[in-house]
């Protein structure tokens, strides 16, 4: 079975695959022995199996405070 992260990086920098249809992508992934989770995500848009395979969890994405929230109100309004 092909390493999922390595495969995703390869797809990300491949001009033919980055915008390929789901059908073309699915065939390419099957040919490279992609993991069942990655195949399911491409075929059905379901990431549950891939999440389990990679042991990934929820991430928090905010890296900025809300301007004007309690901790920087003073610096803004003075």
């Amino acid at each position, binding site marked *: 079975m092909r390493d*999922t*992260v*390595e*495969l*995703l*990086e*390869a*797809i*990300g*920098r*491949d001009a*033919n*695959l*980055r915008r*390929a249809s789901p*059908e*073309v*992508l699915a*065939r*390419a992934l099957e*040919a*490279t022995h992609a993991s069942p989770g*990655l195949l399911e*995500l*491409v075929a059905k848009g379901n990431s549950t199996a891939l999440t389990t395979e*990679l042991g*990934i*969890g929820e*991430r*928090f*994405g*905010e*890296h*900025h*405070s*809300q*301007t*004007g*929230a*309690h*901790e*920087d109100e003073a610096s803004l309004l003075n």
Partner: protein
Amino acid sequence: MSSFVTITFAYYEPMNTSNLVSTESRRGSITSVGMGITLGSHLTPIARNYIETADVVFAALSDHVVELWLERLNPEVRSLQPYYRPGKSRMKTYREWVEVMMTEVRAGKRVCAVFYGHPGIFAWSPHKVIEVARAEGYEAYMEPGISAEDCLYADLGIDPARFGCQHLEASQLLFFERNLDTTGHVILWQLGVVGDRSLGRFKTPDAYRELLVERLCQDYPPDHEVIVYRAPTLPIEGPHIQRVALGDFVSAEYTGHETLVIPPVQALKPNAVWRARLDALDAIHGSGFEPAVTA
């Protein structure tokens, strides 16, 4: 042409430039770089090199798979995710990030701080750690990355130069008296935490977004079409683009990572006063128009 596409794994051997680097004793340094948004597609060559050659890499990434990829580029990755905690002010978390990064810089390490997208956009710590490091005499830089804003222009076909583009953190519309330019695009960010003044919540209830819509309806009709947009983090996905009436925004599909794009609702109005001033200058300096050809 066959529709079957093979996946190739190109191997790139970079030129060895290590002998070009000064051999004088190294001091600590830090560079904030952006990972881009889409795995494999957006990482710039210089950001990749900073990551691969760092002694320590700190990671603040919104997608766990991207962090797994980062670990392939440099095994010395330290995730900043564990510093988050529900109920804890994110500003406290961000200050802790700066401190933990500076500890390694002060220890003489070559540090790379990796943030998703562009490290300087909607991110407090990358700017702050550079400010602190420079104040203490260390080398500190930021390298730009491809941001969600960049993806938005490409995916939605918007050129910010055409009508202008006003970007705001969504909460500012509820916290402050802000004027919206409805003749250009208005783009609102951080919708997931809109209205949160505690900095301790990771998502506010829908009622807060309903309040945002109420505020926006002071400037736009409720049936004005808006776009809910999310850029893809995995290269096997496309962008999420949902067009809804402003009044229906809260009922749109929403994960917390979306951006609201509000197209112009009014046409640009010519400014007669300043055009007359331009006419006066043209009379002195020439208009720049090609002279008309007379028969």
